């Protein structure tokens, strides 16, 4: 479903992604791990369509459609969802009205009827239960004054509401206590099915106990230097990134 081919990305004059290749099929969960600053968020942002990145080579497609040629909103309507590492606070816009607008924009794109207030509310209540988010957070402005954990939970709530086909979760586990981690993972696991796919960016093997990946990739200095099954995460935890970085030719690890 998601194909990243030989992707090169620059920010200002700095080359950040240096030839990424990634194939994610329906029904799969991929984990991307790697040291700080290795380019994980950059990859996630480029998939979602954030501005400020210069794509100097390669391609990113979703079911054969060129994602790089689409606006961020078009990608979202096509089924791309990014759970942000740092969700933005949006004063004055309530979570509920924001999601209603978003959901209906996506439904319109799919040729579905817009949900009226009543149906929307019913649908939302269901999802709220599922990810354990309460009324108070729903009626407040998007992420405003939310704790770190609440923000992450809100991202997963949005994931459940919008039901994308490709979910990219950028460090959704960071800042979560153990209970929240379980709730959030549960939300992701409920989302998973044979028709969608999940890419999780994380530093911690712990998350992968809950969201069990089919593949683990290690991103170092803008390259995927190692891929494997879920055991790779355990091995990494054990041996640290040094173990993989040492396998990269020295000149390129800068």
């Amino acid at each position, binding site marked *: 479903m998601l194909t990243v081919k030989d992707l090169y990305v620059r920010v200002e004059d700095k080359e950040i992604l240096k030839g990424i290749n990634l194939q994610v099929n329906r029904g799969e969960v991929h984990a991307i791990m790697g040291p700080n600053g290795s380019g994980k968020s950059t990859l996630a942002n480029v998939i979602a369509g954030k501005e400020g990145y210069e794509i100097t080579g390669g391609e990113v497609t979703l079911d054969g459609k060129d994602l790089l040629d689409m606006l961020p909103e078009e990608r979202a309507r096509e089924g791309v969802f990014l759970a942000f590492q740092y969700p*933005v606070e949006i004063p004055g816009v309530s979570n509920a009205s924001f999601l209603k607008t978003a959901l209906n924009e996506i439904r319109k794109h799919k040729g579905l009827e817009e949900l009226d207030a009543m149906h929307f509310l019913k649908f939302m209540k269901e999802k709220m239960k599922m990810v354990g988010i309460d009324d108070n957070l729903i009626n407040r402005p998007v992420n405003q004054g939310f704790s770190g954990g609440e923000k992450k939970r809100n991202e997963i709530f949005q994931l459940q509401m919008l039901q994308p086909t490709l979910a990219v979760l950028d460090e959704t586990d960071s800042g979560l206590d153990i209970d929240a981690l379980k709730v959030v993972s549960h939300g992701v696991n409920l989302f998973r099915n044979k028709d969608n796919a999940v890419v999780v960016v994380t530093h911690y093997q712990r998350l992968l106990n809950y969201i069990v990946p089919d593949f683990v990739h290690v991103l170092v200095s803008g390259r995927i230097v190692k891929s494997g099954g879920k055991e790779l995460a355990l091995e990494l935890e054990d041996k640290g990134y040094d173990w993989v970085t040492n396998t990269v030719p020295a000149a390129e690890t800068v």
Partner: protein
Amino acid sequence: MENTRSKDWYISSFKKIEESLNGESKTPFHELRKNAISKFEEFDFPTIKNEEWKYTNIAPLLKYNFKQVTGVKISKKDIEKFLIPGLKVNLAVIVNGNYVPELSHFYKQPSGVRIESFRNMVLNDPEFLMKYFGKYASIDNGFVALNTAFAFDGTVLYVPDGAIIEDYIHILNVSGAEGENVLSQPRNLVITGSNSKVRIIESYHSMADNENLTNVVNEVIVGENADVEIYKLQNENMKSFHVNRTQAYQNRGSVFTHYSVTFGGSIVRNDTNTLLDAENCTGNLYGLYLTEGSQHVDNHTLIDHAKPHCQSNEMYKGVLNDSSRGVFNGKVFVRVDAQKTNAYQSNKAILLTSDAMIDTKPQLEIYADDVKCSHGAAIGQLDEEAVFYLRSRGIGEELARTVLIRAFANDIFETLTSQILHDHLNHIVYAKLK
């Protein structure tokens, strides 16, 4: 000098009116006007050399000889579109600065409440009027002088001790006349007793598409523990000039809340001032301006903390489009006596284009030592991270921007006590920011 020509025009207009006054020209009240016209002569119209008018050049309005116009016929139907749908109000209609009793109506009020035309007061109860008139809004520039010299009509509201006015009082100002450049100079006086409560809507609209000048002065006396709210809505046509001085005077324990909402006008200058002259007062000044084209909106505010244990909250917000221009000058004075003052000021603006511009000047002058004062200013563009966040959820860029701008603007109305008014203003903002 251009100013001089303009000045002469208004002075000769004054003389002409004076000649037609007969007996009134000999009254003590008229002495106040005469005094004001000589002050006007002295002050003239402000220029940008005046520190208080540094960023607002009024030269464009000096190109016109605005004149008082009477006898323009308008019907109930004509003003209907200016009413706030669904809101029950006591209505005072002012056409070209003149109170029109046939279009005004009032529900039964608690005993002692007076809602009258200023004209009526001048003719029938000048002693009462003179107890308050001109005692609060000091004549410190040409506009206040001019309004005072031309103080013929407007609205006077007297709310005695303990009286609570349930429904809003809507002072609805309409100006314009086909083919004329109309000068409207309403003068309003609000006097409230202790433990009284009143909410006033002061709105401005245009009839014809001409350049008009509205130059208003409001004096508001807030009684002990009284609660007075004023919602000022500027919705005149895009060619009109509007100058407004509102001066509140607060007695012990009173709350004065003022909203200034500016949508229309080519040059708009508001001076909204409150003097907290006794303990435990609260002064709230809120403002919103949405400008486009070449509009110029200047909000000056003064919160004068003269006594201890008072608090003030101020929040002004602007959204500036095209090549419009905004000015915000927010003075907060905390006098030597005003210990334990709590003053908060915030001033934010979004510039939608690179041609839009704003000059802001927060001016905190604090002479007491045991006070809490803070001010924040944020001028800039929309938060692009927020725009991307919305887009990444499927919301198109244009809609995302609109959603964010509306949210920014509507924030001002969060504290409004009337849901109907809240929705009405939201609606105007919604329509303006489409």
